[in-house]
């Protein structure tokens, strides 16, 4: 099983005309409609596309595996001379976890919380008899070091909850690397991480894959990320290949219209505008979830009428807590919230219906923000009834107006949320907020769960609504591209305090305070050399 005699550049994995069907609603649906894929040893291929394009399904098929409810209906999958579609379950099992390994999207959900990290890291390696236990453990510590985990000799004795999300993702990479596989499949490994953490994880992943000359398939929806990682990029859509090319060529000269649209959101640019009429003012707010742990320290934010204020920061910086204080879900310990010049009662229960109506909220996960048992009519209709007292035909007329406003039509009225796509769901949430005719909408990461092209659609819709209806937005996000696209002013938060606040043009031009600089520089750019340059730059700063 050694790959000394195997040359870099030999064909490792060859998929020909692979078709995969999924079963639902009493029918077989085509998920992958005949895709070819060739991967050579030591090569990293980026698989990119929107959700539902079949990226993960194809990635798993490279291991000869189909999810429950799916089947590989035709085509050939040849892994190093072995045909996986006809191989027996035990043959495939011998391959998985030893020669092909997998890094899943959510590390936190993939680790067993009751075993130590190192036991899980070496489990497959030892079980397949590739290395004896002691050797595998020693090797795991080396891998931890390679992946720049702190204290590589001892970190393995921790439990999954004792390390951060970024570290956990790196431990999972070590686990995948432990048997020295020929092929690793990365399935959106950094999607759940903060940008500042993502950079480090990406760098260490790329380094280790290069060091051991392992081939990899890197699945993601973020083109800027894949640009740093992959030698070759393959764009998928609706289960078919749209385009495949070498990374630099793909980035500089994409051929297909669709490929260009993948980084569409980066093309929106809003001219920042000023307005001195303040609609929402937060004064010196301190807040805590329990009396001991303070989450917000003296936070003050102002939102001008008809403008967008973006609140930026990594997870745990207090962005969402600020939103909870504004809406009254979390009464602040001190400080107050002024809206339209009047001080709002701290507690939700003591606010009037009209005060509630004027501040609406849109959530990150549209899935959980809508009751799965209510139809669109009920979801959008309820605020119309509740706040404005509209009933019967009047309500339905307004409902249709709102649907047209969010660019949907009457065929959606009787659908359930599960019958909508991700972008449509978020649009319905926007309509629900609009139904209340609010002055301020708090948008909590509303686009981060969506595909690029859908994000663009949602952001454009929000901008158009702002122009037409003069709504103010408090836009919580960690994505700088989104901030550029939509904001007038920016608030940077770090560890529960406001680091910087001001007009967009001011915040996004140097000189930067340290944290803003780290945040801005960590956002991947569409340049294949970006990661190299960034790492070199940070290296220089440290030595200087």
């Amino acid at each position: 099983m050694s790959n000394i005699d195997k040359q870099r550049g030999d064909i490792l994995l060859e998929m020909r005309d692979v078709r995969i069907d999924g079963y639902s609603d009493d029918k077989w649906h085509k998920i992958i409609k005949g895709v070819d894929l060739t991967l050579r040893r030591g090569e990293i291929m980026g698989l990119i596309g929107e959700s539902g394009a079949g990226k993960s399904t194809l990635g798993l098929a490279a291991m000869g595996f189909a999810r429950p409810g799916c089947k590989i209906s035709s085509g050939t999958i040849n892994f190093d001379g072995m045909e996986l579609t006809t191989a027996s379950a035990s043959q495939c099992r011998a391959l998985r976890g030893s020669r092909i390994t997998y890094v899943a999207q959510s590390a936190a959900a993939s680790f067993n919380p009751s075993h130590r990290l190192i036991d899980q890291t070496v489990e497959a390696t030892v079980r397949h008899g590739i290395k004896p236990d002691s050797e595998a453990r020693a090797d795991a510590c080396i891998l931890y070091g390679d992946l720049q985990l702190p204290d590589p000799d001892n970190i393995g004795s921790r439990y999954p909850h004792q390390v951060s999300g970024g570290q956990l993702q790196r431990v999972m990479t070590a686990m995948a690397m432990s048997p020295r596989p020929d092929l690793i499949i990365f399935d959106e490994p950094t999607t759940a991480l903060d940008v500042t953490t993502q950079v480090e994880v990406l760098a260490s992943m790329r380094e280790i894959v290069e060091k051991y000359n392992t081939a990899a398939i890197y699945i993601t929806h973020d083109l800027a990320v894949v640009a740093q990682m992959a030698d070759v990029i393959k764009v998928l859509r609706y289960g078919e290949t749209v385009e495949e090319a070498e990374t630099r060529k793909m980035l500089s000269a994409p051929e297909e219209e669709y490929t260009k649209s993948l980084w569409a959101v980066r093309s929106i640019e809003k001219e920042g505008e000023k307005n001195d009429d303040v609609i929402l003012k937060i004064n010196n707010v301190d807040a805590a979830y329990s009396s001991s742990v303070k989450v917000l320290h003296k936070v003050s934010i102002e939102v001008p009428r008809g403008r967008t204020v973006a609140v930026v920061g990594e997870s745990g910086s207090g962005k969402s807590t600020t939103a909870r204080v504004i809406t009254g879900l979390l009464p602040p310990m001190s400080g107050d919230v002024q809206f339209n010049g009047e001080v709002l009662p701290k507690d939700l229960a003591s606010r009037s219906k009209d005060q509630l109506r004027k501040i609406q909220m849109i959530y990150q996960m549209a899935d959980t923000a809508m009751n799965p048992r209510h139809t669109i009519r009920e979801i959008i209709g309820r605020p119309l009834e509740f706040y404005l007292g509209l009933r019967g035909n009047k309500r339905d007329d307004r409902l249709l107006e709102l649907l047209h406003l969010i660019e949907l039509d009457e065929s959606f009225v009787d659908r359930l949320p599960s019958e909508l796509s991700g972008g449509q769901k978020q649009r319905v949430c926007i309509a629900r907020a609009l139904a209340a005719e609010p002055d301020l909408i708090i948008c909590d990461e509303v686009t981060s769960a969506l595909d690029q092209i859908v994000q663009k659609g949602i952001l454009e819709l929000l901008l158009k609504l702002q122009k037409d209806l003069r709504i103010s937005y408090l836009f919580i996000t960690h994505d700088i591209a989104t901030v550029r696209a939509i904001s007038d002013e920016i608030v940077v938060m770090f560890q529960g305090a406001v680091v910087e606040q001001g007009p967009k043009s001011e915040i996004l031009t140097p000189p930067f305070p340290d944290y803003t600089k780290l945040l801005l520089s960590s956002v991947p750019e569409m340049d294949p050399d970006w990661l190299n340059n960034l790492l070199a730059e940070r290296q220089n700063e440290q030595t200087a």
Partner: protein
Amino acid sequence: MSNSKPGYTATSEVSRVRAKRTLWENIIRGLRSAPPTALFGMLVITAYVVIALFAPLIAPYGESEVFPIPYAPWSDEFLFGTDQLGRDVFTRLVYGARNTIGIAIMTTILAFTIGGGLGLVAAINQKWLDQFLSRFVDVLMAIPSLIFALMLLSIFGSSILNIILIIAVLDSTRVFRLTRAVALNVVVMDYVEAARLRGEKLGWIIRREILPNIMPTLVAEFGLRFSFVFLTIAALSFLGLGIQPPTADWGSMVRENAGLIQFAEYDITAALTPLLPAGAIALLTVAVNFVVDWFLHKTSGLRDE
């Protein structure tokens, strides 16, 4: 269907729309896919319900009509013989279905009203009220329920109303726990928060946001709870503290005729007589469990591999 950049519209995004079906079509589809055990269970339950509803038409004699021959053997005149007082056993089996099932259903409904209601309130409140109710339920559950029920019945007397109230209160503790647990998962959802932000009242949140989402679990639990209540009533009657004569009831029928079992070596049918009500209890319990199993499997979304 191409929605590359120029032609992109929100409506053209791919989403899977399920076929719109009426309730009736859904029921037919559900029945077709049901496994044989579930079909068997449904058949048995339907038969019991029919017997309970039309008891006076099916039974050949009156519920407590006494004939001169006690312990009559099985014959054309008395299908399953007569009991120790000379009452027709078949007639009392038929009426027993009506009494025992009726009381069990009422008890279960009451248990769900109490336990379910309080469980939902506790899940939403999550503060002192939740603590108070949960600890109180813990205390109630710490006492063996059959013995507790026996004690309460001997204090308050075994009227049908008392039986229903006591068993319902004791069983509502289990319903409370389940309802609270499943409701907690729903209460943390953003859509419940959205409803609170809108300013909705507690009743609306419970009725419209939470209940529809926990209904499948509660319906399944209703079936199981019914089986347990049914067994408890039968057990209490067997012990003499349940449904009192002359009302026909399966539990007390087992007790009253239990002595006949010793005559098995002389007349096998005589020994079967006390086993008939016991069998009736067992069959219904098994049937309900078959249906509940299928329903749980269906609603849990598990896929057979």
